[in-house]
C-alpha cells in the first residue's frame, strides 16, 4: 500500500473510544449544560480520536515506536490538559484522603507513567496484548489528569502557586528528558515488538524503511527525541503560562501594609 492511500484510508472507529467519547459528551452536557468550555472537551475528544483511531494508531500498532511515542504524548500530555480546561471553574477536584492530592503524587503519576510503560517487559506486553493496551490507554489518560490537576485544576485554590508550579514542571521535564536520552542513545531496543514486526499486515514496511528511512534504530531514536524535545516544549509552554499567571495577579497589598 502506498503511504498516501494508507493515510487516507486507514481510519478505524477507535474501538471502545467512540462510544466512551459519546458517553463523556453526553455526561458533560447533562452535568454542566452547553457552555463555551465545551470546545475544550471537543478538542480533547478529537485528540483522543486522533491518537486511537487515525493511521497513527495503525502505525503505533507494531510498526513504529515513534508513532507509539506520539500516541503517548497525546494521551498523557495533551488530552488530559484539554479535559481539565473543559471543566467549569467552580468544580472541585479535591481528592480524599488529602495525601493523595499532593504535588508529589501528581508528579510521580505523570513522570511514572512514562517510565513505567517503557520498562521493556511492560512495553512489549502492551504491544502484544489488547487488554493490556487498553489498560495502558486508560492509565495514561488518568495519570495525565492527576499530573495536570496540580497546574490546571478548575479551582484556583487547588492549583500549585506559580513558583512551585514552575519547579514542578521543570523537574518533570528533566525526569522525562532523562528517559528520552536513554531511548535516544541506548543501543538496545526498548520495545522489541517494534524491532521485528511479525507480519506486515498493511504492506507498509517498504515505505517506512526505505521511503522514510526509519530503520528500527532510527525509529527508536525519533521516539526518544520526541520525548526529550517536543515534550519538554509542552512543559515550557506551561511554565510560560504559569509565569504569566503569576505576574498577572491583581495588585493588592501584602498583609500588614497600608496601600
Amino acid at each position, binding site marked *: 500500500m502506498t503511504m498516501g492511500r494508507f493515510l487516507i484510508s486507514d481510519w478505524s472507529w477507535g474501538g471502545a473510544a467512540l462510544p466512551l467519547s459519546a458517553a463523556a459528551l453526553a455526561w458533560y452536557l447533562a452535568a454542566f449544560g452547553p457552555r463555551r468550555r465545551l470546545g475544550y472537551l471537543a478538542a480533547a475528544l478529537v485528540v483522543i480520536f486522533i491518537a486511537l483511531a487515525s493511521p497513527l494508531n495503525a502505525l503505533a500498532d507494531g510498526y513504529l515506536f515513534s508513532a507509539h511515542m506520539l500516541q503517548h504524548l497525546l494521551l498523557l500530555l495533551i488530552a488530559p490538559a484539554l479535559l481539565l480546561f473543559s471543566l467549569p471553574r467552580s468544580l472541585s477536584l479535591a481528592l480524599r484522603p488529602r495525601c493523595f492530592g499532593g504535588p508529589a503524587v501528581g508528579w510521580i503519576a505523570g513522570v511514572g507513567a512514562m517510565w513505567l510503560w517503557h520498562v521493556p517487559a511492560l512495553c512489549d506486553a502492551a504491544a502484544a496484548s489488547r487488554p493490556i493496551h487498553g489498560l495502558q490507554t486508560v492509565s495514561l489518560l488518568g495519570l495525565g489528569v492527576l499530573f495536570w490537576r496540580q497546574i490546571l485544576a478548575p479551582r484556583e485554590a487547588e492549583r500549585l502557586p506559580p513558583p512551585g508550579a514552575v519547579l514542578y514542571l521543570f523537574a518533570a521535564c528533566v525526569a522525562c528528558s532523562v528517559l528520552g536520552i536513554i531511548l535516544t542513545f541506548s543501543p538496545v531496543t526498548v520495545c522489541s515488538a517494534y524491532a521485528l514486526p511479525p507480519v506486515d499486515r498493511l504492506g507498509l514496511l517498504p515505505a517506512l524503511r526505505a521511503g522514510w528511512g526509519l530503520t528500527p534504530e*532510527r525509529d527508536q531514536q525519533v521516539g526518544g527525541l520526541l520525548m526529550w524535545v517536543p515534550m519538554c516544549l509542552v512543559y515550557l509552554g506551561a511554565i510560560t503560562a504559569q509565569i504569566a499567571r503569576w505576574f498577572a495577579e491583581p495588585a493588592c*497589598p501584602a*498583609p500588614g501594609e497600608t496601600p
Partner: protein
Amino acid sequence: MNELAATLARARAVTPLQREHWAMSWLATVDHKRIGILYLLTSLVFFVVGGVEAMLIRVQLAVPDSHFLGPDTYNMVFTMHGTTMIFLVAMPALFGLANYVVPLQIGASDMAFPRLNAFSFWLVPCGGLLLHFSFLAGGAPAIGWFAYAPLNEMPYSSSPGVDYWALALLVLGIGSVGTSINLIATVLTQRTAAMTLRRLPLFAWMILVNSFLVILALPVLNAALVMLLIDRRLDAHFFLPPGGSPILWQHIFWAFGHPEVYIVAIPAFGILSEVIPVFARKPIFGYEFVAGSTVAIAFLSVLVWAHHMFTVGLGHTVELFFVASTMLIAIPTGVKVLAWCATMVGGRIRLDTPMLFCIAALVQFLLAGLTGVSLASAALDWQTKNSYYLVAHFHFVFVGLIVFAILGALHYWFPKMSGRMLSERLGKWTFWLMAIGFNLTFVIQHFLGLAGMPRRVYTYADLPGWGWMNLVSTVGAFVMAAAALVFVWNLLASLRDGEPAGDNPWQAWTLEWATPSPPPVENFRALPPIRSRRPLWDIAHPDRPDPVVGTKGAPDIVAPEKNATGVAAFIVSESAFFAVLVLAYLYYQATPQPGPSAHDLNLPKTGGFSLCLFASSFTLWRAEAGERRGRRRAMAGWLALTILLGGVFLVGQGMEYGTLLHGGVRVGSNLFATTFFTLTGFHGLHVCAGLVALLVVLGLALAGDFARRPSPALRAVGLYWHFVDAVWLVVFATVYLLPHLR
C-alpha cells in the same frame, strides 16, 4: 601592607579598630560584603593571569609559521587560558557581585549560611592554586578547556597536569554549588518581609534562577571529572576503547557546558537589567517579560547541548531536533534585547561609564546571538565549527557580553563597595580602549574563520589574508590589555583619593542604595517601606509613586525554613550527580561485556541489607515524629536505631565488595566493574556522610540541645538521609533488579 591598610582605612573600608588586625579580619571574614570583594579580587588576579596567557596566544598567532611558543607550550597556554577565564574569572566575578549585591537588594543582613559562604569562596583560590601548580608538576594540561576524550586519558596525556586540572575543577565546582545553594536559600528565606518575590530587583531574580541552573549543571561536570580521574588513576576506561566511549565524555561535558554558557550569561543579563534603567531614567520596560524569559532561557539551556556536537556524527535525526530547539533560545533572549532597547527609547540617557559598558554589551551580545543562530543550523555549523568563526562567536559572548557587563557592574557598584567614585575620565578611557580593542580583535576573526582558518592550532601557513587579519587581531588584544591596565590604575587611584560617593550617587532605586557607602556590617540601620519594585523612587517622588506590586493575601511563598531549603537545594545537586552515574551505568550495561557482570552479584543478600537501609528511613521518620511531640528519649532511641541500620547496610556493602575483590574483580576489570564500583562507592560515601551527620545530631540531642529550643537540624539531616535511601532504591533497581527483568 600597612600602606594598603591605611588606604583602606581612609576609604572607610575598615574601621580604625579593625585596622589593627585588618589582614586577619579579611582572611577570617564571614561577612557577605567582604567575601564578595574577596571573590572580585581573586577574579581580578586570575584575569591578569588569563590575560597574560591570552597575550602569549596572540603573539604566537600574530604572524604565520611562528615559533615563539612551540606546539606543546601553546597547547598548555591555550588550555590554561580557557579554563582560567571561565572557572577562575567569569564565575568568581559573578559570584562576587551576587554575594555583595543580592543580600543588600533584598534587605537581608547577610547570606543564609555565612560560613558556607566563606568556605565556598576559599575553594576558589585553592582550585586556582591546584590548577597552576601543574606548571611545576610536570607541565600544565594541554587538552583544551573541553578536555575531549581520549586525549585527556593516560595513554595520550601522561603528565599529571590533567589530574591537577580535573581536581581543580572539582574543587571549583563544589565551591560553585555551595555558593549557589547559599544564594537560593538567601533569596528564598532571608528577604525582608515586604520584599516579595515579585518585587525582586531583576539582578536578584536572575541570580536566583541562575543558581538553580548551577546546582543542576555543575554536578554533571563533577561526575565527568570523577569518572575521568577513575580512568586515569584506577586504570578504568570510561572514555577509552575498548568498550568505553569518547563520545560519552562529550555528551556529559556539553550537558554541563551548554548550561555553563548561560550560567555566566544570565547574571550579565541581570546587570544589564539593573544598569540600563537607572541610566535611562526609566523603569525597565516589561519587567515581567524580562523576568519570565530568564526562566525560559534557563529551561531551554539544559535541553539543547547536542548542538555542540553536530560535527560528531550523531545522525541526521538527532541533529534536526536540536537545530529546532536551539533556535528557540533566540526567542527569550530576543525578548530581553527588545525590553532593554525599549527601556532606552524615550529615556533621558546619561552616558556614564557603567552605561557605556552596558550598551556595548547589548550591541555585542546581539551580534553574538546572530552568529549563534547561524551556528545552530547544522549545515552551516559543519562548515564553521572548527574555524575561527566559532572562536569569534563565543568570545563575543564571553567578552563582548559578560566581561563588558562585569566591567559595567564594577563601575556601577564600586562606589557602594568603597565609598569612593571611580574616576569618570579614566573610566571613559577604559571603555573606549576596551571597546575598540575588543572589536578589533574579534570582529575580524569571523572573517578569518570564513576564510578557513582552523581553530585550536598553534600556527598556520601563510595563506592569502590570514597573516594580516591575525596581526590586526593581535594588535586589538594589546589594546584590550591597555584597557585592563587603565582599569586597575583607576581602581587603585580612586580608592586612594576618589570623590566620596554618598549613599546613592547614581540616583538608583533599589535597596542597596538606601544604606551608607560602604554599608555597615549589619547592612541596614532601617529599611525604607517597600511597596513596588523601586522603593527609593517612591521615597523620592511621593507624589507619583510606582504602582504597588502586591500579592494576593499571603506573600508569594511563606519564607521556608533556611536549613531545609539549603538541604533541598543540595539534594537537587546530588541528584544531578547520581543521575549521570546511573545513566553511564545503563549506557555501558546495554552491551554485554566479557568478564564480571551483574549476575555475579548476590541479589538475596544485598536485598536483605537494602531492607535495613529502607527500614532506617522509617525509623528516622519515627525519630522526627518523636522530636515534634517533644519525646526526647524516644527520638534518641529511634535515631540510634537509624544509625545502627545504616551501619549494618555499610557492613553488607563491605561484604559484597570483599567477595568481588576476593574473586579478582577490580575497578578496572571491565566496564561493569568500573560503573558498579563508581556508583555504589559514591552511594556508600554518601551513606557515611549521612551517618556522620546523624551522629552529630544524636550527640546534640543527648547533650540536651533540642530541649532548650526547637532545632531544624534533625529535619534538615533527615531530608538528606531519606534522599540517600531513595538513591539506593534507584541504584538497587538498576544494578540488581534490572538485569533479571530482561
